[in-house]
């Protein structure tokens, strides 16, 4: 139980938060505080386990290793930023933080999964609260986004489940880390369709082209803090579990899926960024950009070498920080109640560089990190990926990364140019107000993004340790 303490803390926090909502309804925001403390405590507790000896727990279906701990920290960051972005926003409802915590709990479970059961449960536990959260702002758009998300989620979970069933049929066990040992079973012909369906199911969640159509609508319709959780948290969850399944269970077949995923990744990077070009709504822009970045993440998996795993792990953090920064800007521009009913568009950024230079700086840092400009974390991430591709002797992947980056460049620069428009200042820029929670989020995101870009060594070190999870290989 010691090893599951972070999870228990978060689950306990969620229950306590519910009790607080029911028991002390007079104290508004108490649940938010409880959950914030719980998430922070879970993060600290997980960090203290860093030097733990890797081991399997819970009937061999969960692993405790640095990979899982790193994932835990990442998703807790996503959760905390989401809580802070929605701070004091009463129209989300008191239960909002509880649902965020439950979703984060699902992601944390995914991080350590070594069996298909926790993979399925983790994905469901992370998705179910998100369906509700997407509809949590009582508008028509929110409902539609939630509906779309729900249907596609159920569909992709069905695909995932059936693939898992086939894998189970092929190997007689659900513990995927044991698959390499079971190669010559009578039903082994089920392995390939099973693997294909599992990968398709997860790539749906990761929004890889051609399974990406749902993303922009859902991102646009959902409340901004929820979109933040979707863009950062679910991406972390889906990407790391895909890596774990493929790297543990199927490294023997790597030459087959590696190349295929690589093509998909290149396609995703180019298509996602291409579709981002004409967007004027910032949240849609981020949706398409998220698709493109999922392609970058997939490159790290497709190279199927240790550098690729490290690079993917590394890339998650700068991507997440940049996303948080931009979402925070959107959130601040949305302002108070009612401001969310109309999306933030490029014209809403007009005059920001002159009127709100600090906010403009935040957006600049976020967008430049998305674009992969040096001295931001995004650049180091891309560099790492190129390195992994070349170490895997696949220059085609590297060229794909470069082309994808180039295609998306203009999409990330247009908001920056919009800030410099001189003809007047948009209403939103003029009336926006800093909130304390927003400032905290923004400062962490900007300092983190630049910090990783200027001095990446600590993160490189952490990542090289946490991606070193081949300790189970051959098991």
């Amino acid at each position, binding site marked *: 139980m010691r090893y599951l303490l972070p999870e228990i803390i978060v689950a306990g926090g969620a229950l306590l938060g519910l009790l607080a909502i029911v028991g002390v309804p007079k104290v508004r925001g108490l649940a938010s505080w409880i959950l914030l403390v719980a998430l922070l405590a879970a993060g600290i507790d997980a960090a203290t386990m860093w030097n733990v000896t890797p081991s399997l727990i819970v009937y061999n279906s969960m692993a405790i290793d640095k990979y899982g701990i790193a994932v835990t920290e990442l998703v807790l960051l996503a959760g905390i930023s989401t809580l802070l972005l929605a701070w004091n926003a009463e129209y989300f409802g008191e239960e909002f933080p509880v649902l965020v915590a439950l979703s984060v709990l699902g992601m944390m479970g995914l991080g350590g999964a070594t069996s298909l059961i926790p993979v399925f449960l983790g994905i469901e536990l992370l998705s179910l609260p998100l369906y509700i959260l997407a509809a949590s702002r009582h508008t028509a758009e929110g409902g539609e986004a939630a509906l779309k998300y729900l249907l596609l989620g159920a569909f992709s979970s069905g695909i995932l489940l059936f693939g898992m069933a086939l894998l189970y049929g092929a190997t007689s066990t659900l513990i995927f880390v044991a698959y390499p040992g079971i190669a010559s079973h009578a039903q082994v012909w089920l392995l390939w369709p099973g693997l294909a369906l599992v990968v398709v199911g997860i790539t749906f969640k990761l929004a890889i082209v051609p399974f990406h159509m749902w993303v922009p609508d859902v991102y646009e319709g959902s409340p901004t803090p929820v979109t933040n959780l979707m863009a950062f948290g679910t991406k972390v969850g889906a990407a790391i579990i895909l890596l774990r399944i493929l790297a543990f269970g199927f490294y023997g077949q790597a030459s087959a899926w590696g190349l295929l995923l690589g093509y998909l990744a290149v396609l995703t990077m180019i298509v996602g960024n291409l579709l981002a070009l004409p967007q004027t709504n910032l949240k849609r822009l981020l949706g398409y950009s998220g698709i493109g970045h999922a392609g970058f993440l997939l490159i790290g998996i497709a190279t199927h070498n240790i550098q690729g795993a490290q690079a993917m792990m590394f890339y998650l953090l700068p991507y997440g920080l940049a996303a948080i920064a931009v979402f925070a800007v959107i959130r601040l521009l949305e302002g108070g109640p009612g401001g969310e009913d109309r999306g933030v568009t490029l014209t809403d950024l007009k005059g920001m*560089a002159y009127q709100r*230079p600090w906010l403009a700086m935040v957006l600049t840092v976020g967008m*430049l990190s998305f674009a992969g*400009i*040096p*001295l931001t974390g995004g*650049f180091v991430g*891309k*560099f790492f990926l*190129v*390195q992994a591709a*070349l*170490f895997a002797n696949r*220059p085609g992947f*590297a*060229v794909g990364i*470069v082309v994808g*980056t*180039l295609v998306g*460049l*203009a999409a990330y*620069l247009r908001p*920056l*140019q919009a800030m*410099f428009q001189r003809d007047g200042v948009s209403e939103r820029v003029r009336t926006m107000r800093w909130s304390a929670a927003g400032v905290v989020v923004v400062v962490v995101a900007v300092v983190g993004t630049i910090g990783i870009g200027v*001095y*990446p*060594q600590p993160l*490189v*070190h952490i990542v*090289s340790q946490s991606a070193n999870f081949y300790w189970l290989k051959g098991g």
Partner: protein
Amino acid sequence: MLWIGLLGIPLVGALVVLLLSDRAAKLGAAVVAALEVAAFAALLGGVAPTLNLAWIPAWGVRLHFTADGLALFLLGLTAVMTLVAICASNVQYGRAYFGWILFMEFASMGLFGAVDLFLFYIFWEVVLIPIFFLLTGWSGAKGRAAGLKWLIMNLFGSLFMLIGVVAVAVIHNQTTGSLSFEISQLTNLPVSSLAAPWLFGVFALAFAIKAPLWPFHGWMPDAYGEAPAPVTALLAGVLSKAGVFGFLRVLLPILGAELHAYQTGLMIWVAVSLVYGALMALRQTDMKMVSAYASLSHLSMIALGIFSLTAAGILGATFLMVAHGLMVGSLFLILGVVEERTGSREFTGLMGLNQGAPRLATYFLFFALATLGLPGLPGFAGEYMIMQGLVVHEVGFAVVAGIVLIVAAWYMLRLFQGIMQGRPDHPAVVDMNAGQVAWLVPLAILVAVIGVWPAGITGHAVPSLYHAVHFAVAQGGIR
């Protein structure tokens, strides 16, 4: 320690300037730039200092800066030109403008000083950002389009170069078992004959776009034309050198054998670029465009000197980089003054300026003559050395270069005549004021000093070029 100062002064200065009021920003920026010039002066005194710290040990990336002879005077050029550009800037541009200028100084300093390939690449891209924002926020009507074009074209080159940078390190890793980006360790790599042309190509493409050389100059007319005069001066005077500098700093040590193998093709390419620039300069009616294409032509001349792979040619190129930076930068600043005084850039409608503004005309003539290579002024010394290298290597190119020099004299004098001579159209033009003369006079003196004493630069440059040239000798390239 000196390096920390060199990089820290503009970086911290940029942040400090951002905190000043808009009106105090120009003064503050000027003080910072002056401090930087002082730091550079300190650099001149002692031995070439280096900064060498571990940065990302996991990848063998080091924070390694050197002020060798190749970089030393480019650093000085950056410091001086930034100071002058700040002095020449309109105080109303505000603090963000001066902040970006200082940030650009920081990035250029880092770019010229870096001898770690990763570091070089970082600064190579970082330097694009301030220009992008300066073009976007503080330039003419088409500035935003120009900024986008600038960034996208340059990133097109540099992102492919990123693959090259990583590939070089990975190849080094395959032979030695450890990653390193130190340029001095990346020589004599066993590059496969399949990969070599691609590697060379991605580096050369990035350098050619940044310079720019024909036919990669698509961003140049818009950016040079739309940017405020001080920014254009920095672009043409300082940043354009980064491109040709890259050939010397990166390609010669790392892919010298390939450079040697493709020598003739490269020389034909830059010779075309040289002629193209000169001819385009001849048919422009916009005075900024004349200088822009003239600059392209000169950069081709520098590249021609490098590709000659002769001691004289490379030395001349090194010298001309600095001299050209000073001269063309000043020329753009003066054109900026002219534009500000008359409100027009079309020199066909600007005749007779020297009657109303004799001082302006005098300085203009001085820098125009320097640019076209009048003996006694630095343009001549550099071009002479390059020609010497070309004659040694292949006389044909020397002939082309000589013809282009004549064309250069033609378009420069055409420009001068167009603006300064003839019947005055602008009776009310105000001559330069004391403030403007104050920054022009030292610049003119500097140019004159370099012109009569080129050994001041070449003397420093020779030792550090020794290795490069020595390598070329080993390849049988120097006669």
